[in-house]
């Protein structure tokens, strides 16, 4: 039984407007989604080697949300995440080698083996951190937006979280405050319909999440999270709102989680969801759909895609080699940075 069906409109509504995007930009969106996918597929392949000793949370099937949102941001803008970090981190420009070293618990990981996959960081890229506690980053991102206001800076703050975060009180506390103070923050709910194995219908009444957010006084929209252009356009106008002092935006992006909550592989056969539902969503692959849309328009072709695949493969393999050959931390490292001087 398919409980959560695709409800988007595909790429057709973007046909008339396609001319306003330049080809390079469109291909960069495709490249970024492919890169996130391929990094994770390689993680998945290697996870069974049991060397990457960290709880991974794959974002396969949901890449368009990270990529579309982060494409609307500049380097100075700040991004926070929940536990499902990989897509957000890479799309914002987080360093791939430092991420892989972190997953392999190495001394040169982005936070030197103190964070693992649920807590990545790349301050230079404007990826300001993440929390392994559901909705934990929400008030922190809201505080960062308050800081931008108080410091008279024009950067925007964006925070990613899952649908279950909207069951946490601290999310609504954050939304209330952001709306009250008209803070330059963008809340991105990556609704993949499941919290671990618990379906949305077991957790929330049938009220659309974005409508609840709207009731808190935020500008709130629901987007097709498999359509990178729709996500991008929505995020772009949210960033404009933030920069021009018009206050916060809530974006609910619908895209299915192809894999289990954590670890490698799809766990649908355990019975909490119908494998047919996964297959249903695979027809709306954010990468394939976008590739076909661009190919039909002659903006990319098969050799072009193969060249991207080859380039990414090369980069990913190098990043894994880098991580595996990197030094591990020493005992004395444990005692560092409990307190700041």
């Amino acid at each position: 039984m398919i409980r959560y069906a695709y409800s988007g409109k595909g790429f057709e509504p973007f046909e008339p407007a396609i001319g306003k995007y330049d080809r390079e930009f469109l291909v960069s969106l495709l490249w970024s989604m492919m890169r996130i996918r391929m990094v994770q597929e390689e993680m998945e392949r290697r996870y069974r080697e049991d060397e990457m000793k960290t709880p991974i949370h794959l974002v396969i099937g949901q890449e368009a949300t990270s990529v579309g949102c982060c494409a609307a941001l500049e380097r100075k803008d700040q991004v926070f995440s929940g536990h499902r970090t990989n897509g957000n981190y890479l799309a914002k420009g987080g360093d791939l080698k430092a991420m892989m070293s972190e997953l392999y618990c190495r001394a040169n990981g982005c936070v030197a083996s103190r964070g693992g996959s649920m807590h990545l960081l790349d301050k230079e890229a404007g990826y300001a951190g993440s929390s392994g506690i559901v909705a934990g980053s929400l008030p922190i991102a809201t505080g960062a937006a308050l800081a931008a206001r108080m410091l008279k800076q024009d950067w925007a703050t964006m925070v990613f979280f899952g649908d279950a975060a909207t069951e946490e009180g601290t999310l609504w506390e954050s939304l209330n405050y952001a709306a009250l103070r008209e803070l330059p923050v963008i809340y991105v709910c990556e609704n993949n319909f499941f919290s671990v194995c618990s379906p949305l219908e077991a957790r929330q009444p049938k009220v659309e999440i974005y409508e609840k957010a709207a009731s808190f006084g935020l500008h709130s929209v629901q987007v097709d999270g498999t359509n990178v252009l729709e996500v991008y356009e929505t995020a772009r106008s949210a960033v404009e709102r933030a920069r021009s002092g018009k206050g916060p935006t809530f974006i609910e992006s619908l895209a299915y989680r192809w894999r289990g909550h954590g670890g490698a592989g799809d766990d649908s056969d355990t019975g909490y969801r119908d494998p047919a539902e996964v297959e249903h969503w695979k027809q709306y692959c954010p990468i394939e759909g976008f590739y076909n849309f661009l190919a039909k328009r002659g903006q990319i072709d098969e050799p072009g895609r193969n060249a991207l695949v080859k380039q990414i493969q090369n980069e990913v393999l190098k990043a894994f080699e880098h991580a595996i050959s990197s030094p591990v931390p020493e005992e004395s490292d444990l005692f560092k940075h409990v307190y700041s001087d």
Partner: protein
Amino acid sequence: MPWAQALIAKKTDSLSHQDPNTGRVLSYAQAINEALVLAMELDPKVFVLGQGVDDPKGMFGATLGLAEKFGGERVFDTPLSEDGMTGICAGAAMMGLRPVYFHNRPDFLLLAFNQLVNHASKVHFMDNGKTNVPMVVWAAIGRGWGSGAQHSQAVHGLLLGVPGLKIVLPSSPYDAKGLMLSAIADNNPVLIFEHRWCMRRKSAVPEGFYTVPLGKGVYRRRGTDLTIVGVSHTLELALEAVDELARDGISADAIDLRTIKPLDEEIIFESLKKTGKILILDSTWAMGGLCAEIGCRVAEKGFRDLKAPVRRIGLPDIPTPAGFTLEQYYYPDKKRIASAIGEIAAA
């Protein structure tokens, strides 16, 4: 860095101003207020928030006049979203600001443990030292007049075991000002727990900028028969008891720790080596908090100096009753502390 300059310029022995009878006398609230004004004048990144900080009562008077002086962008009221607002402070601090977040009671901080314990205290470590969280959270421990189980709790014992936090319990206006300035200057999350009954005190408070260092206790009395170590209001009661016992020829070292995390172990063991006996006091439950921690450290590191069993006086393992009719049996009073001191001295 305004703080580095200010701290270097005032690197004097701030422990020497202990006489409440000399110099300019201020109330507790005035002393805190003065610290906030100085901090906000020194550093435009300091801001003050909390439910009622700009209302006519001004947080027991501690924040009176700040909104008028510094404006609503730097001194502002908040929704009652303790966890959310704590995270908002942490996020602002991570971006370089220095929030000072006021609460009427520590009980309300229990709503903010997710941000305090899971986030603010750990970000510096998890970010491998790349991010600081310089924030101050302030609350006043209540007692009496029906405060009861949900308006009189002191929660510092629950937080003592959380790495990354600093915890301060001033007991005089002098310390309240100096510790507040140290706390705001500190690059870590610092919790300040005042006690409503200590807040009735007045004492000499120097004008201008000075700090009382975090992690340094101070002798309030010097003596030979035993070591009394503690914080806040219960220590104040012990000082009254010790003064009365002088007529019986009993004298004690009485140490006001002022900060319980980091804990000034040095001063405790310095005194214990001399007296060989120790009474540990706290204004919260004796179980599992400061009393238990010091007792354990004394057993671990000071066992050979002990001439009598370790004693502790805190609250019993019972919620605070609301009515004065029951409350009189709940809190330790001067008499009970005095009799414990007498027993330990005679042991």
